[in-house]
């Protein structure tokens, strides 16, 4: 896996123009919107995760897969490495976002509520991980081109779900149901769901990569 991580890190770093632009946008958002900690954290974490996910496209670019899969790299390792890289990058993005908010607070003189920020980070990070796990699976299963179409379907399903929830909001007290869950139970539940989704998506990704022919 070390070789693959080195390859992907180099691929990201070699794309200087994109990475500089994205980092610059992160810094601008971090400083100008530092008081909106949730937004900055989500933004930087997502940007870093997407940057890592983009390495799947680089791998496919110029018919690169046959060579890549002829290297002493097991297909399972290839799929798992994408999870390690993307989820690791999201975590790095989250920490960088936090650092930017703290720097912004120090420079611009506003306060950041440490407990509130930590709580938000703990809640939002698993959700981001779940979304990223799904995205990695879609990319590995369908490839960068077809995955765009699948993404539209994915967003469509989410929107349809939201529409259904809003339709039945009068019959079911969703807010009340959520408020009745204790913070500890919610945290454990979220953690369990996150682990389950990551493991499931990772397994499905491994199977997708193993089934592919190059």
């Amino acid at each position: 896996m070390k070789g693959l991580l080195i390859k992907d890190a180099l691929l990201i770093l070699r794309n200087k123009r994109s990475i500089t632009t994205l980092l610059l946008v992160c810094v601008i958002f971090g400083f100008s919107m530092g008081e909106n900690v949730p937004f900055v954290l989500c933004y930087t974490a997502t940007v870093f995760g997407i940057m890592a996910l983009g390495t799947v496209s680089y791998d496919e670019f110029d018919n690169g897969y046959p060579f890549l899969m002829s290297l002493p790299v097991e297909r399972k390792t290839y799929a798992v490495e994408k999870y390690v890289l993307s989820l690791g990058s999201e975590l790095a993005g989250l920490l960088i976002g936090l650092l930017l908010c703290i720097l912004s607070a120090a420079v611009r003189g506003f306060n950041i509520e440490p407990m509130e920020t930590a709580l938000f980070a703990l809640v939002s990070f698993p959700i981001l991980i779940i979304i990223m796990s799904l995205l990695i699976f879609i990319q590995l299963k369908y490839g960068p081109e077809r995955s765009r179409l699948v993404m539209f379907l994915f967003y469509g399903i989410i929107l349809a779900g939201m529409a259904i929830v809003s339709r039945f909001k009068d019959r079911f007290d969703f807010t009340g149901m959520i408020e009745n869950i204790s913070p500890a139970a919610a945290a454990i539940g979220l953690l369990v769901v996150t682990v389950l989704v990551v493991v499931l998506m990772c397994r499905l990704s491994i199977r997708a990569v193993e089934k592919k022919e190059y």
Partner: protein
Amino acid sequence: MVIINNLEKHYGSFHLNVSMEIPDGRITGMIGKNGAGKTTTIKAILGLIRPDAGSVEVFGRNNKDLTHAERERISAALAESGFSGWLYVEDAVKILRSLYSRFDEGMFREYCRILNLPLKKPIKEFSMGMKAKLRVLCALCTGADLMIMDEPTAGLDVEARIEILELIQKYMEAHPDASVLISSHISSDLEGLCDDIYLIHDGKILLHEDTDVILDNYGVLKCDEDLYNALDKQYILSTVQDKYMYRCLCSDRHYYSSLYPDAVVEKAGLDDLILMMGGKGV
């Protein structure tokens, strides 16, 4: 080193069905027209595609079950597939170093200098020849026991082709136990390099022979209809009839030269094999 047993792969109307062997310490060539099945065979050896039937054994084990250490002993230079164009050669060094425990960095850097491959330039800015040289160099410097090369000289000028073939030859001199499978439709590249040749056509192996035997014994006999009708055909492999004569590919030209002293019997090259055995015979 590699044993392929009744390997089958079907793509629509194309059906591959081959058996072949790549022995230790030999350079085995695979010739055939475009679409004959060379790349499919190579992909099956490397495990890039799943066979529909048959098996591929590498180092005495089914290629599906190779250990990581065994996979490190295989390297490949594939046609039009290599490191991402966004990377630099310097990056390829770092990646290969971390993937192959026997990667010879000194040799790699030395050959980059000799072959004028800049270390600090994106690979996508390389010429076709530079990319081909880099692909072969990457395969050679991993210290592999088995090298698989798919059309390593395709689309290159003579000078670049000679440089690549010399690289492979030098590697084999330094690693006499290593094996190379090299496919090409440029037969002259293989004539001076390979120990034995497989001719593949329409997904089937039509011929397997030592290169020396082909070049020393095989011939093309040119004859008119009368001579053709009276011809002893025991060494005739294939016959092509054109407007004025019959051209017969034979596996013993000396036999026909002595039997029919007035007939024209020319030496056969690999191109003749491809054209006559892969064409429409009589």
